[in-house]
């Protein structure tokens, strides 16, 4: 057991101290792109120090046993370890990778999901604790390579591919086909009635519309201010600033007419909303890509084939529906992915 693995798992399992019961929005290391689904974080009970230590001991022991046994298991057979960050979409994608490898090779797949963030996944990948995980090009560019955000999707992909190959010996596989970035969302019936397809289509109606934005969108450098300037839109009154989860409710209930959400949020599909196309390419690309260790690909070429077959196979709509199936309908990610693979003939 290396000290590195210890820290990796500890960090992954740690619960950040809560200041208030709050919706769990983007409690992430810098640059991590996504928000998590709405969940209440409850402040840890204030036990006495001694008490806490004693109650922690069994947990620490269990953790040690787990570490030792998992370490032994890995050396045993030919295994591919799939990792993921700790939110629904990542778990679904990792499950997709896992099932794909299981179906197209004789390899055994171990799932190490819910790792606590971009940096932890990256460290695990580079050090060989995991063999592959899903990432977003924009996140890789800004959070890992520390580059400024860029607008051109192919340019971002090219840069990330080159740098990952040279610096980390990691292969950035072809994009899965969807982009998880900010999205301007309107009600489906508005979109139909007014023939709205792109953000620019909104311009004639903006003066009469109320906009609702989340706190993250208001603060991010690639958020509100630049967006207003890029499209030259003027809404009626100042934007309403709401919690992201409540934004969709407010939109559905006609309290606002346009909100900034995330392009793969499941509720967009379930509440019959429409995400408008970013026709001026304001939002930086966050295309989902599989990141795979090159050593793994050389040793097991069938992994390249299995994962490569996923290129351009997952559209934004499909990702939304899968996210919704897991978050909204509480279905098992493995079952959701099986259904998807069946439908796509993968």
């Amino acid at each position, binding site marked *: 057991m290396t000290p590195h693995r210890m820290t990796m798992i500890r960090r992954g399992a740690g619960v950040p101290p809560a*200041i208030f019961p709050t919706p769990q929005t983007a409690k992430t290391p810098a640059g991590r792109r996504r928000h998590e689904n709405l969940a209440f974080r409850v402040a840890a009970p204030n036990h006495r120090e001694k008490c806490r230590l004693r109650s922690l001991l069994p947990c620490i022991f269990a953790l040690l046993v787990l570490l030792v046994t998992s370490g032994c298991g890995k050396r045993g057979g030919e295994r591919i370890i799939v990792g993921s960050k700790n939110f629904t979409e990542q778990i679904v994608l990792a499950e997709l990778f896992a099932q794909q490898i299981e179906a197209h090779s004789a390899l055994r797949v171990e799932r190490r999901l819910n790792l606590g963030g971009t940096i932890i996944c990256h460290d695990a990948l580079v050090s060989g604790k995991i063999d592959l995980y899903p990432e977003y090009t924009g996140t890789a560019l800004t959070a890992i390579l520390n580059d400024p955000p860029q607008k051109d999707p192919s340019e971002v992909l090219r840069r990330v591919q080159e740098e990952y190959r040279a610096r980390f010996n990691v292969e950035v596989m072809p994009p899965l086909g969807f982009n998880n970035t900010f999205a301007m969302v309107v009600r489906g019936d508005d979109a139909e009635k007014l023939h709205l397809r792109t953000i620019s289509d909104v311009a004639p109606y903006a003066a009469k519309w109320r906009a609702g934005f989340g706190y993250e969108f208001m603060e991010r450098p690639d958020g509100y201010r630049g967006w207003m300037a890029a499209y030259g839109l003027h809404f009626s009154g100042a934007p309403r600033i709401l919690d992201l989860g409540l934004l969709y409710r407010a939109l559905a209930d006609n309290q606002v007419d346009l909100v900034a959400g995330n392009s793969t949020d499941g509720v967009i599909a379930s509440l019959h909303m429409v995400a408008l196309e970013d026709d001026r390419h304001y939002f930086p690309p966050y295309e989902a890509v599989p990141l795979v260790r090159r050593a793994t690909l050389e040793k097991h070429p069938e992994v390249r084939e299995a994962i490569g077959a996923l290129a351009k196979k997952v559209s934004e709509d499909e990702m939304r529906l899968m996210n919704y199936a897991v978050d909204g309908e509480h279905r098992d990610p493995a079952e959701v992915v099986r259904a998807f693979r069946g439908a796509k003939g993968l």
Partner: protein
Amino acid sequence: MNWYEFLLRNRGEVFERTLEHIGLVGASMAISLLIGLPLGVALVSRARLQRWVIGAANVVQTIPSLALFGFLIPVPWIGGVGASTAIVALSLYSLLPILRNTCTGIAEVDPAVIESARGMGMTPWQVLWQVQLPLAAPVVLAGIRVATAICIGITTIAAAIGAGGLGVFIFRGLAMVNNQVILAGAIPAAFLAIAADSGLGYFQRSSARR
């Protein structure tokens, strides 16, 4: 940058948000006092109804605040987004301690005292105003104190529904992954709660002394 440096640099906005916060708390406390005190007095002698009403207030208390804000968005008249929805939700949350302590406080006044007041020829109205309420005041004030503390805390979540207040910093900080910004909202809110609590505590003690 420390949280107090952030606080100093943004003192204009912090001040504005604090005022918003106090406004939200004040408005919702006023509404729940206007409803809770008379309702509590009216329920004292109606044990059955009292169980139902306090039970309902109890249920409201268990709804997570963010969920309650969500429920209120589609409600006509009182719902929507903004301060009014927040005030409705906050009043509902403050209601239980006020209601319960008003009932308990009045119910626990020594029956012998009430009997002698009646014997002196006081009307029921006079008994209420001159005997029961003054004697119940410390307990009622304790309820108001708890309600205020709860209200100040939950008002931070009202920022989720666009009502402003110190919660704006907390949500913004969470979105930016910046603890300084979170603390710039959380610490003034904590101070507000402490100040309100000790102020009301002073009242409570002086009412108990009489």
